[in-house]
């Protein structure tokens, strides 16, 4: 037993010196110095309720998918954290540490945003543009909430983070559900934000050629909810 613990500690050398900043259901988030910069380390842990072999395979696939989607978005011109290092063996991803504010906090407690309608419209426009860009390259984020959107301090650009549930799909249905998830998140965390969400959709529509299919699907999804009916 002692030997096993010792080996583990060698394996996670980097995490040993890292500072835990968040723990979620799927992963732990650390910050640590990394090759002259500061990095975020996202470590997916094993789920003990799953069969170990299956768990290993699924986790490896998720890490792989997350890294690919993250870079694909960055490449298409959306501001996302820069990918530094993917370690499939230890289920960790190292990426850029973003200095900035989380949109959720801005909309709740930053007076400039709470009171100033113009600021909100401007922000909604940026969100719409970023979403149109990721959907244009067929990336579905999978967990769009205001906690997964940030504003970079240095240049005030909108950063999309946490691609942990993302995947690639060209179906308008999947894109519509992506928007629907954001709408739900928006309206439940920020009261009276209907107007702001409408602004997001407007900017999404303007900047994305195939938006018509997605928006008409969105109307359908609104009526029935996120899950597709499996009847028939």
């Amino acid at each position: 037993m002692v030997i096993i613990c010792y080996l583990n500690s060698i394996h996670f050398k980097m995490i040993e010196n890292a500072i835990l900043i968040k723990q979620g259901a799927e992963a732990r988030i650390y910050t640590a110095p990394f090759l002259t910069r500061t990095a975020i380390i996202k470590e997916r842990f094993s789920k003990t309720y799953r069969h170990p072999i299956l768990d290993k395979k699924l986790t490896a696939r998720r890490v792989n998918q997350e890294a690919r989607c993250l870079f694909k978005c960055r490449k298409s011109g959306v501001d996302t954290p820069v990918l530094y290092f993917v370690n499939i063996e230890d289920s960790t991803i190292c990426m850029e540490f973003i200095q900035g504010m989380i949109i959720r906090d801005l909309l709740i407690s930053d007076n400039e945003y709470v009171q100033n309608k113009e600021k909100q419209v401007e922000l909604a426009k940026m969100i719409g543009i970023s979403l149109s860009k990721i959907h244009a390259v067929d990336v579905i984020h999978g967990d769009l909430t205001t906690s997964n959107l940030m504003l970079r301090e240095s240049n005030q650009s909108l950063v999309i983070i946490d691609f942990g549930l993302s995947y690639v799909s060209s179906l308008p249905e999947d894109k519509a559900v992506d928007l629907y998830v954001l709408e739900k998140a928006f309206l439940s965390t920020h009261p009276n934000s209907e107007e702001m969400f409408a602004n997001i959709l407007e900017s999404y529509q303007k900047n994305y050629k195939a938006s018509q299919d997605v928006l008409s699907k969105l109307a359908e999804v609104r009526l029935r909810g996120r899950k597709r009916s499996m009847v028939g």
Partner: protein
Amino acid sequence: MQSFTLETYPTRGQIHILFYKNVSNAADLRKRLLSHDQELSYAFIDAKVVLDKFQLLIATNDAVHHELNSSLITHNIHSEIVYNLSPTTNISESLRRFGIADSSTSIAVVKVGGNSEEVKSHLSTLIHGEESDIKDFSSFADISKIKKYYKIDDKINDQNEILDMIVGSIAVKSVS
């Protein structure tokens, strides 16, 4: 010359990065590399395609990771560094584009492990050229070549942004 410790694998030894300009014997070095000369256990990289030391560190970190997981794709850790710099998985193309050519006059060198003084004195006997500060990489870089190799949009001109794209391409290579 500058030496670094990888936070991920601190026990693998120090990473030494050096930069030589006005090099006159690149053809000779390349010939020796091709004949697997054991004395040349260094990664020799054409400095024209290096924008920053961070780019080299990311490729080196990946190479060390592959070495320790016994998943090296090329012969040794130093050729793996050169291979990792390339965003493609074609080995000969990667080595041709990122390794030194007969006509190279500026060379970046990466060495994994070893004592910094010994590395420096050994390299000074191998390379006929002037050692320069590794901060100078960006002024020797051929941006249009870099953009072509890493398939970076021509509209992107900010050096930090180009570096971010380079780093991402190198990192995503291990999962594509």
